[in-house]
Structure formats: C-alpha cells, structure tokens
C-alpha cells in the first residue's frame, strides 16, 4: 500500500483528490462508510489479477489499485462520498482490465490454433 501511495504522489492524484474534497466533501454530508463498495472493488481487483491483468493490462490495473488505496485514505478522513466514487471507478477499471486480459488471451488462443491448423494442413498436403 505504501508503494501505491508513493505512485499516487508522483502522478499528482493527491492534488486532484484535494480538489475533489474541497469541491464536494466540504459541503456534502459525510454519508455512510462505503464498505460494500470497498469490498466489491477489492474483489474486482482480485478477479482482474486472476485473469492475468497484471500481464496484459498493467497500467489500468495499477490505476484501479491506486484508486482503492486513495479511497482508503479518504475513508480514514471520513470523506465517504468521494471514497465511494473512487471505489466504484476502481471496480469498473479492474473489471475492464480483467475483460481486456481475457480478450487478449482469447485472441492469442485463436492465433495459436490457426497456426496449428495450418501446420496440420501442410503436413497432410505433403504426405499426399
């Protein structure tokens, strides 16, 4: 988590968060702790990793992880509404990363099997 935080600072998201907090958190009521959103975001991250998103979509997966880390900070500060939005975004980011990884793998599989078929066809033609 420490790593995520340092990346966040590098990408300047803290500034953006501060802006968000000022714009909204300031005047909006804190609302409820977004525990359910945190849970679904983390489970979406797990699923994305299981789908090999780390290999196929590292940037988007990293974004999602950063958002979750940032959201946890916001929760500590009781800025629940902003945290909730970040978590919802992290969740769809992770889902997209997982979906893209699945598509990439399927595309590879198609390529492999087509090569396989081509080799078979050549072998059959040669033997005839």
């Amino acid at each position, binding site marked *: 988590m420490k790593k995520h935080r340092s990346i966040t600072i590098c990408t300047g998201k803290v500034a953006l968060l501060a802006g968000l907090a000022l714009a909204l958190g300031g005047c909006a009521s804190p609302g409820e702790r977004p525990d359910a959103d945190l849970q679904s975001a983390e489970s979406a991250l797990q699923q994305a990793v299981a789908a090999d998103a780390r290999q196929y979509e590292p940037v988007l997966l990293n974004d999602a992880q950063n958002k979750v880390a940032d959201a946890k900070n916001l929760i500590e500060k009781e800025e629940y509404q902003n945290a909730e939005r970040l978590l919802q975004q992290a969740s*769809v980011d992770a889902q*997209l990363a997982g*979906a893209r990884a699945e*598509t990439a793998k399927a595309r590879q599989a198609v390529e492999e099997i087509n090569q396989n*078929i081509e080799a*078979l*066809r050549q072998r*059959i033609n040669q*033997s005839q």
Partner: protein
Amino acid sequence: MKQRHVTLGLAIGLSVLMTGCASTPQQNAKVEEARASYDRVKNDPAVARSGDTQLRSARDQLNRAESLLKDGADNNRIEHAAYMALRHAQIASQQGERAELQTQIESAEDRRRALMLAEQTGEAEAARREAEALRQRMAELQAEQTDRGMVLTLGDVLFDLNQADLKPAGEQTVGRLAQFMREYENRRVRIEGYTDSTGADSYNQQLSERRAESVRNALVNQGISSRRVESKGYGEQYPVAGNDSSSGRQQNRRVEIVISDKDGNIDTRED
C-alpha cells in the same frame, strides 16, 4: 423537396430558439464520450448476447449522467456517472469481443479435430494400400506365407539335373525377385538349397550349397547387394515329402528363398 427542407430547417431553428430561452443546451465532453461508446456497442449482437448486464449498467449510468447534466447538477457527479457509463460500455464491448473469439476458437477446434482425423485416416489408408501392394507383389512372386515368413520355392525343374546352373525359367523367377528387392529396399533374403536322399550325403550337401550359391549369384548379377543375400545348403535335411517316391524326391530337390520382414530380419533354421 428543397422547400420542405427549408421549412424543416425553420421549424428546427425556431424550436432551438424557444428552448434556448428556457435553458441553454448543456454539453459535457465526458458525457458525450460515454454516449458515443455506448452507441457503438448497443446494437452489437455479440454484446447483446454476452455483455448484456454491463450494457444495461452503461445505459443506466448514461441516462443518469444526461439527466444530471440537464438538471445542471454538480460536474463531479455528472462526470462520475459518465465515467461509469463509459467503463461499462467498454467492458460490454470486451465481453462481446471475447465471446466472438470464443466462437472462433470452438469452430477452429472442430476444424482441427476434423483435420487430425483426416490425417489419421490418410495414414491408415496409405498403410493399407502399401500392405495391399506388398501382398500383390508376393502373390506375383508366388511366395507362400509360412511360419518363417514369405517363402519362394524354386523347384527342381528350374535346375539342370545334378547341376547347379539355373535354367532360363529359373533366371526369370530370380529376375522377378530382384525387381521386388529393388522396390522394397529393406528386405533381405536367405537362399537355402535342399536335395533328396539319393546319393552320398556329402555330394548332396555340396549340390545344395552350389544351387543356393548359384541363385545368390544370379541375384547379385541383377544388381542386388550381396549383403542383402545369404545362402546356405542343407543337403538332405528338412525334406518336404517322402523320399520313397520319385515325385516326393522331386519335391525335396528345391531351393527355398526366405524373404525377410520389413526390417530385414529372417528366421533361420538353426533357431
């Protein structure tokens, strides 16, 4: 036609003016991006089949973004809904694409299975044709299947009486054998001479050896490598008929040519 366009244009212009007074048309790049993304996939049948849930989420979030925009809601709320709509549309699109690829994989698997089967059938068919060709060649040679493999028997009539030289008919048979051996390069032969029991053992032994050797020479003369041909005389041993009748004795006076298996192995008498 042109006039209709003009009136239509006028009408639109008027309505724009009128609504313009009520509220200025709201625009937001994020919402437009989400709308464009949603519009691209909403009619894709593959997405409808496999990304239905995500597509509906995209539509709901898009509607929310657009209504927030219309109500002049806070920009962060609008753009959050737009973001969610965009992502859901993108996920739906990926799911549709993946389903398409999955279909391709399945049909390719079917094709591959069919090709593999064709290859196997082709191989089996080739092996069957080869076996059939060999059987025919063996039949042409008049070779017989025995416990020791295919055996071609050269009868006494192919040799001069008490001589080792082959008669022309015998030469012809050897020529056919040579042709067969040229076609089947891994086959070897073992040439075995036999006599009847008339006369001295040592004479018969020698005669059987010379006859076998004579056939061997004929084969080598036809261009068959001597390494593929072995010969041996057995004299009076291993009669195939009784020596008490002239026809039996004639059957015993013979040369047998044992043809190896496809790897060049031959069962010898000594085993």
